[in-house]
């Protein structure tokens, strides 16, 4: 079995209003950062798992994200997968 670490990013779908992002945007504008054009706030989740190979790890993560970590009605997700060897990234 191999050990992997996943960095999962859950973001609101583009069509969904993001009030928190909008509020932070107006805060930045008040501070004078008028070059910032858009902010969307999402979630970052770290997760480690064991799997036979990378394909299986990715399949499991897809299921985990689809079933629980993200709500497909309002959110998209993506993840980076890093294989761990001897406690360090490969």
């Amino acid at each position: 079995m191999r050990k992997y670490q996943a960095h999962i990013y859950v973001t609101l779908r583009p069509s969904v209003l993001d009030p928190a992002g909008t509020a932070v945007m107006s805060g930045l504008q008040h501070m004078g950062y008028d070059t910032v054009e858009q902010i969307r706030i999402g979630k970052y989740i770290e997760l480690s798992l064991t799997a036979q190979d990378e394909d299986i790890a990715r399949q499991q993560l897809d299921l985990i994200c689809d079933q629980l970590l993200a709500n497909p009605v309002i959110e998209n997700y993506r993840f980076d997968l890093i294989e761990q060897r001897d406690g360090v990234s490969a």
Partner: protein
Amino acid sequence: MKFGIVVFPGSNCDRDVAYVTRLLQQPTRMVWHEETDISDLDVVIVPGGFSYGDYLRCGAIARFSPVMQQVVKHAKQGKFVLGICNGFQVLTEAGLLPGALIRNRDLHFICDRIPLKVERTDLPWTQSYTPGEIITLPIAHGEGQFYADEDTIKQLEDNSQVIFRYYGDNPNGSVNNIAGICNVTGNVIGMMPHPERAADPILGSTDGLGLFKGIGARSEELVVSG
């Protein structure tokens, strides 16, 4: 009608609901979230609160509790389910109702009393109200903005699945002022306002009582009126 009220870690409106169903002299029991047999129940109520701390998303973790698998079965058998506030969020997460509840438009947690228009009175739940009746119910939520994509909203409207709409001001930005919906068959309903908090005259309003009377009245004469 036998009522069961689901209790998740973090539920905090469960006993308020039980107070109302017992006020109406309906047999009522609390249902712990780990229970796997609810076949004795006619009506399941998923109450408000913060199930599992609302970690990840409101209602996301509750959906996978053992009792929710039974609630889904109960609903599919055509039996009655009501989700209030966090319970509504749980029912959408479980796929029993369409859409999702997202952060309020203005980012505020809102605690207020809000006028609602009753859109449907042909359901067992809402039969105590008159068509187009305006009632006032308390709301208390930070993530009560109803969202669904355009196709889903069209289906909801075409099928008359919207049962309550915010009347006048839209407090949280919900699409089409939606405050409560039902499934296609009408046995499952979800709503953000709290009918149980307006069901005893001591609280200043009984506008929410009709919902419980409607469903309870199906099987027997009610003892408490008005």
